[in-house]
């Protein structure tokens, strides 16, 4: 463990992140709850807090150049279009996409995955085809495929996990003999924090002739993402988990795939020419952006991407890895009776800690912690099949982001002690 540092994080600096300085960028972290407790926010896997830079960018758009994009031949309209398209470039750079035109803005990762399931899936999946998923998928990367295979009379197969929440690649290898058309998996598990070996899995899938979709919703805020290095075909993510506003998100896909795919939603913006009985489609990515998009929110996502690149995603990752080591140590020393789920190797784990206090339901854990100002998630975290696999009805989950500190972990550890005191366990 290295000692906490007090350097200011700016480009070029390779010192560890200083979350205490970063916290000043997030106004909500200075607030207190209605019970007068300082907010300890440990639910970033559900949604992240937003820095001033993002809040201000959204505000500036709304106050000074609110106009629709790709339409107005007037100053603020042109400015809105420029900002919206600049956000696309920042987002592309953030995941090292080779071409910003391969970034389709969506409302969130869910919409991005549905876009692929409807547009690519309905054209490419036929009767008896196999799609391989994993047991640890968020419902967003499960239910769209269920609908698709029901409609097409195709099949779903699942890569199982080990008891500590790691994908069993030896089973994946066997499943690939079914010659699936698509393999879709999460980059980082929202429930267990497992960081999957996405590049290796993509290479395996390609070798078997399958396309690969990666659900990056839980990865983009926490680990460096390079879609070219991963080699995947589709990469979906939400803005709101990576410090951007809700309603922002993106799908990245290789140009030739996007060009061959039929439109998803239809209407304005996505067309080139409309006649009464037929239309031609706009070029990518606008072909997939029907209707007025979430302009302010996507501009906010571009700013969030710049903010994170400025911090350096490798340093963000290192910060969370260190916090995880610290949290594991404190749990082991002070709450050895509390069950932790997921891989205990911090090298393959992101800052997500699902836990179970014997004798106390996760809802009650969350409720008592809430009274102490500590926000965690309790429930199934949109991974019901994974909870079935873990054989627990629900878990409590603490999760980190760039602004999480050791003091937050300390508050959680003390709070768990209070939960146990209230419940007499």
């Amino acid at each position, binding site marked *: 463990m290295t000692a906490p540092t007090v350097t200011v994080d700016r480009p070029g600096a390779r010192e560890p992140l200083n979350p205490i300085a970063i916290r000043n960028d997030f106004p909500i972290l200075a607030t207190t709850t209605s019970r007068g407790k300082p907010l300890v926010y440990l639910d970033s896997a559900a949604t992240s807090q937003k820095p001033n830079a993002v809040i201000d960018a959204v505000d500036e758009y709304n106050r000074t150049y609110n106009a629709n994009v790709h339409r107005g031949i007037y100053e603020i309209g042109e400015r809105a279009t420029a900002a919206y398209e600049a956000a696309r470039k920042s987002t592309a750079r953030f995941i090292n996409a080779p071409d910003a035109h391969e970034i389709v803005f969506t409302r969130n990762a869910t919409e991005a995955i549905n876009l692929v399931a409807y547009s690519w899936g309905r054209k490419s999946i036929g009767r008896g085809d196999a799609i391989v998923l994993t047991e640890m998928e968020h419902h967003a990367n499960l239910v769209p495929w269920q609908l698709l295979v029901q409609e097409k009379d195709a099949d779903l197969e699942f890569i199982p996990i080990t008891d500590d929440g790691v994908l069993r690649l030896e089973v994946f290898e066997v499943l690939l003999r079914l010659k699936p058309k698509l393999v879709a998996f999460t980059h980082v598990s929202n429930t267990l924090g497992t960081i999957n070996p996405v590049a290796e899995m993509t290479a395996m899938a390609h070798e078997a002739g399958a396309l690969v979709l990666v659900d990056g919703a839980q990865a983009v805020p926490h680990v460096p993402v390079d879609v070219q290095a991963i080699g995947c075909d589709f990469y979906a993510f939400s803005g709101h988990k990576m410090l951007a506003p809700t309603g922002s998100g993106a799908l990245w896909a290789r140009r030739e795939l996007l060009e061959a795919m039929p439109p998803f939603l239809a209407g304005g913006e996505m067309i080139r020419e409309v006649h009464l009985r037929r239309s031609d489609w706009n070029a990518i990515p606008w072909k997939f952006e029907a209707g007025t998009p979430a302009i302010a929110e996507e501009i906010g996502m571009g700013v969030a991407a710049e903010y994170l690149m400025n911090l350096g995603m490798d340093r963000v990752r290192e910060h969370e890895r260190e916090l995880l080591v610290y949290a594991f140590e404190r749990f082991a020393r002070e709450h050895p009776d509390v069950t932790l789920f997921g891989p205990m190797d911090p090298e393959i784990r992101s800052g997500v800690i699902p836990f179970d206090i014997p004798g106390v339901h996760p809802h009650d854990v969350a409720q008592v912690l809430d009274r102490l100002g500590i926000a965690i998630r309790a429930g199934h975290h949109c991974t019901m099949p994974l909870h079935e696999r873990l054989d627990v009805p629900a878990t409590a989950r603490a999760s980190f982001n760039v602004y999480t500190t050791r003091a937050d972990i300390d508050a959680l550890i003390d709070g768990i002690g209070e939960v146990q005191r209230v*419940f007499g366990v």
Partner: protein
Amino acid sequence: MDDLYRDYILEHYRRPHNFGTMDDATSSYEGANPLCGDRITLQVRVRDGVLDGVAFTGRGCAISQASASLLTDEVKGKPVATATKLGSSDVLDMLGIEISPARMKCALLSLDTLQHALGAEGSPAEVSPAEGSPAEVSPAAERQPGAEA
């Protein structure tokens, strides 16, 4: 510290009344809040229009389990017509604590389950057999909520 986890709530959670199964139930129903992972299987035995037996098993948060314990105490021995008239406010009164909107489903799961169990009475399509093999009523004191949570 707490206005929610009062002693009697925790007492009903740790040692719920009417916890167990009956082998001569006339109807049963399994209610669940899938979002929370709360689950209650409630059995009723109706004789001559009277709820002369009621038992439940399940696992879930303190609020859902305490509410099932309190509600089953309340309706046991009462005419079915009285039990079916109970509404949300009656259950919230029994709990006697302030329930936030997010926990309302936990608090009312037992009432919803009871109403289904009673509604199912005499309607074969909806009667689900008691879970597992016929068992005697297991003493509530033997239950270890922790082992199940």
